[in-house]
């Protein structure tokens, strides 16, 4: 086989295999911290698969946002919650039949959906990406013009999230001395030094 087709195929199977195995490990790992680490691995392989599809921007987002921030937050939550996971898993066998039934129904639904799916004709014609425009540039061309409204609204949603996080978690302790940079910098020798005329033999 030609190297031009072999290499991408090899890379695909490598990354897809790693993604599937580590996704499985997320579920079955006993230690939740390990689950999160496997989740990060899944994100990485998925990012690699996105690159192979030509969706570079999504790959970048996956690494910057999901691996860089979301996974770290997952770790925080896992470590912060004092959950006894052994105890949590006790009802597992009890719920297994119901869970299996539900997964079976979902699987059947997915298969039916996959079998009936056909791509509408107009949809194919709408595909906008041409070879000479990179994925990220194609995003940029529409995101800040045609989709500017959603873009600004997304900014407001981020702001609401920020206000919410601060409102729910910020607690200022009363009796703590904080840095006051402005005051500290603008302090002159005059404020700190006082010349006292000490008389001999009396002290201050």
């Amino acid at each position, binding site marked *: 086989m030609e190297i031009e087709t072999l290499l991408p195929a090899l890379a695909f199977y490598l990354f897809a295999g790693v993604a599937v195995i580590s996704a499985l490990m997320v579920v079955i790992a006993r230690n939740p911290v390990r689950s999160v680490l496997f989740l990060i691995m899944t994100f990485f392989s998925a990012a690699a698969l996105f690159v192979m599809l030509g969706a570079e921007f999504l790959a970048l987002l996956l690494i910057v946002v999901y691996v860089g921030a979301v996974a770290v937050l997952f770790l925080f939550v896992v470590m912060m919650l004092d959950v006894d996971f052994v105890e949590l898993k006790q009802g597992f066998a009890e719920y297994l039949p119901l869970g299996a039934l539900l997964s079976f129904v979902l699987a059947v*639904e997915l298969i*039916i*959906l996959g079998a*009936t*799916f*056909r791509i*509408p004709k*107009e*949809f194919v014609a*709408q595909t906008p990406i041409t070879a000479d425009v990179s994925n990220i540039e194609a995003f940029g061309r529409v995101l800040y*013009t*045609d*989709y*500017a*409204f*959603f873009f600004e*609204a*997304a900014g*407001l*949603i981020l*702001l*609401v*999230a920020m*206000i*919410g996080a*601060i*409102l*729910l978690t910020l607690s200022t302790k009363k009796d703590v001395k904080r840095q006051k940079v402005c005051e500290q910098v603008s302090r002159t020798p005059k404020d700190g030094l006082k010349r006292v005329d000490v008389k001999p033999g009396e002290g201050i």
Partner: protein
Amino acid sequence: MADFGSNMAALLPEIILVISGLVLLLVGAFAGKKAVPAINLTIVGILLLVAVLVLLRIPDAALSLFDGALRLDALAVFGKFAALLASALGLWLAYGYLKTDKRLTTEFGVLILFAALGMMIMVSATDLLALYVGIEMQSLALYVLAASNRDSLRSSESGLKYFVLGALSSGLLLYGASLIYGFSGSLRFEGIAAAIANDASVGLVVGIVFLLSGLAFKISAAPFHMWTPDVYEGAPTPVTAFFSVAPKIAAVILIARILFDPFLQMLADWQQVVIAISVLSMVVGYLGAIMQRNIKRMMAYSSIANMGYALIAIASGTAGGLSGLLIYMVLYAITTLGIFACILAMRRAEGMVEQMDDLAGLSRSQPALAIGLTILLFSVAGIPPIAGFFGKYFIFLAAMQANLLWLAIFGAVASVIGAFVYIRVVKIIWFDEPPQQDFVPVSRVQAILVASSATLMLPAAIWFLPALYEWSEIVALSLFAGG
């Protein structure tokens, strides 16, 4: 960007809201605790002002904004006005309550303001993306408000529950939206309608059902109601009052728009789903309400049942159904706000009480409040001369015209069972022995809200119902005329 100017002009109310929200956030951060009451009152004023502004700027014909992402039509104006008014009154109610408890913060008002902005986007969305952005903006603010009483374990629990289940429902909604996009090739309602007219495939049915499930979560319709009682009970009471009114109006209008606009051609497909949700909601809501002793939990189940009635109107799929829906939602909103103003008045010297039995003997200790609450409870029960009856009447009428006679009969029977729930409270108020201790006197805000909402429910407010009917009629016809 030639249409930039006209887009901005049409969005003036939203822009005013955003700018004032940002400015007041900063003012609150810099001015500290002293300015908090003033800021919250300013936000109430701004919400009212913007509501009036929305009314003043009704466009002659429906305006399509941002290339079809939003539409400013009669329905959007109706929804924006109702949502803004409900948000303003909700914040006003909360203001008095939280100020007494010294728990008022700048962020509280600002979050309600941004929630109101989210609702304005929701009611005017004609694009799956705009729909999602509006819902998220609204929900995110609501999650935080539910947990806003950090010192209370129940408040934190309710915020967490609401957030986790809300995120799940957003997932369902997004899954449905992505299926609709995949099978129709368009995010815009226009494009979706064209795709359906061309070829209504099974994928679209699955998509709209998932979308409906996500939206049913937001209006707390059964079987997606599990979060409601706990969240209503745990959240601070004025937040519960806000939850049960403004977001419901916005979400119901959103459902009506998506089902009546692009998906009306698939009426046969979604009608059964809506009917099923509606019947379940009425059954679960009223049976659940009978079991409750806590009045906030009872109101939670009551709102589930009320959403069942709203869904009857949607299931009819006609202009009459839409106008009935709007009348019903307005009456529901007014009654609910009034009842919650009464619940907020259940304050003894040592703190708030929430059990129904605490209302015992209210007729002797505070007769005015007792009369107001009785009228409101009769209204929500749907007892004839009071306005709530007409809300149900128009819905049943629409259902019968859409050949859903059995659904109308079912609704009528359910409302008889439901009447028991409300009349039981009335009985406690008028016939039970009063406890040793009276409630502290009602505040001015609560008195005004109870009095005005109860007055509007009476047949004496003769102008109110016809005016509401006329407006809802205009709105419904304009949507169905394709304008």
